[in-house]
């Protein structure tokens, strides 16, 4: 049972990340590879907040949201000048920069050694020690992010985002300052990724920079490509498929080393096959 709960918690974390990434890539056409950076900033905000600053879990989430909002607002302003592959390249640059900072700003992040002993969430005197209660809490947050996605998706704001993802100039000509829309969705997505990072840090209780490399951003990209672009359902299904895959390989009985290598090959193959044969993904409503 613990094994299932563990998988379900990971699924919720990656579900939140995929939903937030789909807001920028699927809904808005902004190919951001910076999600791992915001995920990492949220995780480190909770880790540092809870271990060094004496903060509680929820206040550390707010700290992560604040830091991510400021960084993503500045970066989003720069990124709003770009589209498509240029957007991907510049956002990938951000991911590399954040990883380097996490690795080298040892006084704050403890560098490659990472941060241990991150606490569990608590409300008053009640602490979410058990995995089952932790799952209950993160599930509520995941559902909230899902509903937020659906709300934006069905709003006029969402329609403008879908307009600019295909033809920004045309959408502008209808009276929309598209740069503002791009910045807002980028900031929202970044802060939600940070929330997922906070849960990750608290759940694992130890984080180091290696989790938040560019390859994690590409993994998240693979999740939404497989599950479906511009689809809330696709985001969570993609997370389910890709989180389950290593477990399936484990059950087959492959040696750990072989399974790890095979997993990367399968991820890559899924990405290529989806782009060629079903570019909108399993449940997607948009193809790049």
């Amino acid at each position, binding site marked *: 049972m613990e094994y299932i709960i563990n998988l379900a918690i990971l699924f919720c974390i990656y579900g939140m990340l995929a939903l937030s990434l789909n807001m920028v890539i699927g809904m808005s056409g902004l190919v951001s590879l910076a999600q791992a950076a915001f995920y990492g900033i949220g995780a480190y905000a909770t880790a540092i907040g809870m271990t060094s600053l004496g903060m509680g879990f929820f206040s550390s989430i707010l700290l992560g949201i604040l830091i991510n909002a400021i960084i993503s607002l500045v970066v989003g302003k720069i990124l709003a000048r770009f589209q498509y592959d240029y957007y991907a390249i510049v956002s990938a640059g951000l991911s590399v920069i954040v990883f380097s900072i996490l690795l080298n700003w040892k006084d704050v992040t403890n560098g490659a050694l990472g941060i241990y002993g991150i606490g569990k969430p608590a409300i008053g005197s009640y602490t979410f020690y058990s995995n089952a209660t932790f799952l209950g809490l993160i599930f509520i947050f995941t559902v909230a992010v899902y509903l937020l996605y659906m*709300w*934006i998706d*069905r*709003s*006029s*704001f969402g*329609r*403008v985002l*879908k*307009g600019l993802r*295909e*033809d920004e*100039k*045309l*959408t*502008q*000509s*209808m*009276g*929309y*300052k*598209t740069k*503002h*829309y791009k910045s*807002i969705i980028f900031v929202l997505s970044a802060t939600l990724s940070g929330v997922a990072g906070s849960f990750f840090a608290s759940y694992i209780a130890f984080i180091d920079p290696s989790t938040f490399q560019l390859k994690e951003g590409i993994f998240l990209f693979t999740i939404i490509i497989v599950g479906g672009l511009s689809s809330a359902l696709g985001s969570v299904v993609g997370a389910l498929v890709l989180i389950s895959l290593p477990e399936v390989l484990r059950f087959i009985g492959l040696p750990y080393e072989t399974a790890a290598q095979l997993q990367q090959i399968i991820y890559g193959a899924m990405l290529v096959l989806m782009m060629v044969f079903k570019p909108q993904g399993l449940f997607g*409503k*948009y*193809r790049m």
Partner: protein
Amino acid sequence: MKIDKIVKNFKSIQKGELKPIKPLSVYGLDIIACKNLNKQFMGIKAIDNLTINIPQAQTTGLIGPNGSGKTTLMNILTGMLKPDSGEIRVRDKIRKRIKSHELRKYRIARTFQDGRLIEQLSVEDNLLLPVADNTIFGGLKEVKQDDYKARMEQVLEITSLTEHRHKKAEELSYGLRKLLEIGRLLMQDAEINFFDEPFTGLFPEIVEKVCDIIGGLQKQGKTIVIIEHNMGLIKRLSDHIIVLDHGTLLAEGRPDFVLKNKAVREAYLGV
């Protein structure tokens, strides 16, 4: 400028005088104008020191040979291109350029020669896109719930798109795509409406439908600018014609006067 002089100038346009109107001379009666406008592409002058005035509540046919600068002019007047120099005036606002996101403020809408639509959105969403609240938090409310839905139903009917409302734009035939673009323009309820070759490639029955739609806008007193190569349609729809050649104003005035003009016939009609 005194009103009697403005009216006199305006009447001179109506009479079909071919002499280019002096810049800013009829500001009381036109709605959009440009003065000494220039635009080059890689050293080639697409618009060459052009000064024109578009009369209010009239239909202006913008004609000229291929490469004469018609679409470039329309793109500049609708904020899709930035001019190199010159002035643009919309009503009483004089600007160096119009920014595309300001079109709604100026109540300008347009269609495109190549039929620009949001391909992966439905017909309904394409129609509703231009009428959303353009404030960020206002946009979080769904536009379908308000009175735009009623307008959308009317537009769907006028453009014969009702049965295609849930299809993606990319699934529509060429003629329906043109109608959807015109429908999007109608949704905007703009005062100044630009049509860039709205009839190109259409079957006769759809041409008549588009003519009816433009006729409806004329009855509402809208300002209309049409780029079109079909002289029959231009004569039928236009109150006023502007002829461009090599980015300059060749002639302007009432259709029957302009189309009889020797210079126009030589440059454009080749006769």
